[in-house]
């Protein structure tokens, strides 16, 4: 879909632009990731407000996680999360085997060290969405082989 292409390009430019600025100025990689994550946070908050305007109240945490995996992910990335695991004590692992933001980069181990930059925004997105649904969380991402990520 045309919309997706524009968003992908904007996202890649954002990552590139922020890192370019950092190289010339402060030179701190950590801060760029934080900035991207906080941008994702704002976007996540806004998006979740719009998506859940008309849906029913969520029964519990698991229900919320299922919503994120199915509806939220579909609206944002046009596909569902492939695998959701939990230890029922507050830790959830969402696995996406063909993560949209990474499919154009590589299909294997190449460029693995650059992957976290592209995941920071999405981590913020999830954290923002959850925070507006009343859940405080920490979201981390792990990529072992592109384009799958957890």
């Amino acid at each position, binding site marked *: 879909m045309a919309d997706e292409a*524009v968003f992908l*390009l904007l996202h890649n430019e954002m990552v590139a632009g922020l890192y370019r600025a950092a190289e010339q100025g402060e030179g701190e990689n950590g801060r760029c990731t934080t900035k991207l994550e906080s*941008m994702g946070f704002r976007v996540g908050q*806004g998006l979740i407000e719009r998506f859940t305007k008309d849906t029913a109240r969520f029964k519990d945490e698991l229900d919320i996680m299922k919503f994120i995996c199915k509806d939220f992910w579909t609206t944002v990335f046009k596909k569902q999360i492939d695998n959701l695991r939990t230890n029922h004590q507050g830790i959830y692992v969402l696995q996406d085997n063909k993560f949209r933001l990474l499919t154009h980069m590589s299909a294997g181990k190449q460029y693995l060290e650059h992957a976290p930059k592209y995941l920071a925004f999405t981590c913020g997105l999830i954290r923002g969405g959850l925070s507006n649904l009343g859940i405080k969380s920490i979201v981390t991402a792990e990529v072992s082989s592109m384009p799958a990520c957890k």
Partner: protein
Amino acid sequence: SRELFVITYGALVAQLCKDYEKDEDVNTCLDRMGYGIGVRLIDDFLARSAVKKCRSYSETADMIAQVAFKMYLGVTPSVSCSSAAGNEFSLILDKNPLVDFVEELPAERASLCYCNLLCGVIRGALEMVHLAAEVTFLQDRLKGDAVTEIGITFLRKAEDRKQKRN
């Protein structure tokens, strides 16, 4: 969905405003990012639309307004030619989806061109099809004008090159 793009763009502009104090810096940054997007977007556009080669500046401007804008932003600006030489055009947007969630510019950011990314995108895309152009905002609804107007001035280089080949 488009909302994702619009909200992300808003967050980006907000972040840039935090990083840079001067409006001109933010505008430059947005333009540069737009340029980077434009040079890649043109491939996507040509692949999706399969349009024929444009034979004149006026056709190109029409193409941008009626096909590209419609495809990516869902709106169709109206095109008008504003110079006798036929190389200056304006695209008039009465509905700009990028500012759907923005009410007004904050007071200390009065000269911020919120949609400057669009100018960079158009400029980058045109350059990739060998048309040098200057793209700027002539009017901006967020700054109080009646409509949002983008001015495209095609620079003479492409024409000269064609003549030399003949």
